[in-house]
């Protein structure tokens, strides 16, 4: 749900500038798709164990899981990760077909990753087509990268399937709270995030409406080279910005009218409180962490 982990993948590829640029463009599109997914119906409402967990447990767990994906290089490691992931999928009670739907968005990235690793990893050649060869290392590398990507998407999707956007921002706010001692405006950031979540569907709808209104005046957003298309976005972006500013102004007035004055003295309607279920969750994560570390150490031995 955040792009940083995709950078992690990219950093592991052999660096070629064309690849870089292409992947950057692809992930920008993905981020937009993912934002859409989070804000428009990614949450799957049901009453599973995962759903009832405190969002902080889930945030920590997802982070841990993603880090663990990059720590293994052996089959044993991947078996452990797979076991963990699939048991979480089972616990979430989210139908499998929903989970794999999220993968559709990254098909292109997946293809790129597999192909680049397949053809561009140096090592012992297995097949040869002219000057392009596929190496054993390439096969292994491609396989691992593909699995990492897929598990990455599934893992973070599980979190957004089982946690509402509000719970997410509340969880982040609580986790980041200690930072306010070093003057980080934690409450304000969380408030901004939840307001953004609230307005993204509205802004998307407005984009559609403005686009149609300009198309009714003969605007063309589809044809032309990069420069022409960038220019054609002006009649779309200027009204959007103006509207966004107007909304922000209205919203600020409405918030002040309801006595909002920052985080001081605010109480919460739905405060986050740990229950025994959450402590068990943390224990499970601790066990997983131990397994991850142990597994990595064993790999080094072998």
């Amino acid at each position: 749900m955040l792009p940083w982990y995709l950078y992690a993948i990219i950093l592991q590829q052999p660096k070629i500038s064309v690849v870089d640029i292409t992947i950057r463009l692809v992930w920008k599109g993905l981020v937009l798709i993912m934002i859409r997914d989070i804000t428009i119906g990614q949450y799957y409402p049901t009453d599973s164990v995962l759903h009832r967990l405190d969002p902080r447990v889930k945030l920590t767990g997802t982070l841990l899981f993603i880090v663990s994906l990059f720590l293994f290089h052996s089959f044993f490691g991947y078996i452990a990760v797979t076991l963990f992931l699939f048991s979480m999928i089972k616990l979430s009670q989210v139908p499998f077909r929903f989970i794999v739907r999220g993968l559709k968005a990254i098909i292109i990235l997946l293809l790129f990753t597999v192909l680049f690793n397949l053809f561009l990893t140096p090592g012992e050649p297995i097949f040869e087509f002219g000057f392009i060869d596929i190496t054993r290392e390439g096969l292994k590398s491609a396989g691992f990268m593909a699995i990492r990507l897929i598990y990455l998407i599934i893992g973070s999707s599980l979190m957004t399937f089982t946690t509402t956007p509000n719970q997410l921002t509340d969880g982040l706010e609580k986790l980041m709270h200690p930072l306010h001692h070093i003057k980080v405006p934690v409450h304000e950031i969380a408030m901004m995030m939840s307001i953004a979540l609230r307005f993204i569907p509205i802004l998307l709808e407005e984009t559609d409406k403005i686009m149609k209104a300009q198309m009714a005046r003969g605007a063309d957003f589809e044809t032309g080279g990069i420069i022409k298309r960038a220019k054609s976005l002006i009649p779309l972006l200027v009204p959007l910005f103006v509207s966004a500013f107007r909304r922000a102004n209205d919203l600020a007035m409405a918030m002040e009218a309801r006595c909002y004055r920052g985080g001081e003295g605010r109480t919460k309607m739905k405060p986050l409180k740990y229950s025994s279920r959450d402590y068990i969750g943390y224990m499970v994560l601790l066990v997983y962490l131990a397994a991850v570390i142990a597994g990595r150490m064993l790999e080094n031995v072998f």
Partner: protein
Amino acid sequence: MDRDMIEVKDLAYEYIRRDEDGNVESINRAIDNVSFSIKKGDFVAILGANGSGKSTMAKHINAILNPTEGSVWVNGLNTAEEKNVWEVRQTAGMVFQNPDNQIIATVVEEDVGFGPENLGVPTKEIWERVEKSLQAVGMLEYRTQSPNKLSGGQKQRVAIAGIMAMQPQCIVLDEPTAMLDPNGRKEVISTVRELNKKENVTVLLITHHMDEVVFADKVIVMDNGKIVMQGTPREIFSRVNEIKKYRLDVPQVTELAFELNKSGLNLPEGILTVEELVDALKIQLRKKETSKAGGISADYI
């Protein structure tokens, strides 16, 4: 002595436009020497065309704007004093024109709870207030829904619930129906009337739709920053020519009654609804019948 809910004394407000160097470019005296008062529990409407100063007036009541001259008092508190601001805003809640731009949360009940959260109300009480407010506006069954799925009228009702949850003594509504369709308008106005009657909340409704103010206790008409007419709805509506001069409108039946009277009929003043007009016409027509029969001259040409 029961003090007034709202008191406005010699209020003036100027919008000052400055150019890039900070020099004054233009001054717009949006409110020019306005005074009026509103009693507790009243339903008062301020009518005016765009640019009459009515919205600017509304924003003074909850201290969003401060007077350039004069003063505004809410429940005995001077709105211009910084130390009063939050109490003023809790006493006088405000509902705005754009339904979307005042809803903060992604779930209806959470948005209604936003106000109480800001006031530091304990969690358990927040839930009680949220339920009570949603019930009062008739939106309780939508409590877990996303606001995006609601109609304009429903969104405004949620916004009203959000204000009610702060337990204000008075609600100011700044053109709450301007962006709604006729059904939405009816929904919102009837909700507000209910709140005024049942919860005894003082209401100040800013609008340019005449049909929304027929039940008000008092109507104030603004034009060019000044108060130009003040009185009960019936008193105001009967002065059709003046209303039109101030770029406002009357219900079609009021206009028809006015036109008929111009042509010599003698219908009573201030007819506001279809029923009233039909009844008045029936009386006139029956008079005509009897006068025809008895030869007494009737009140018509």
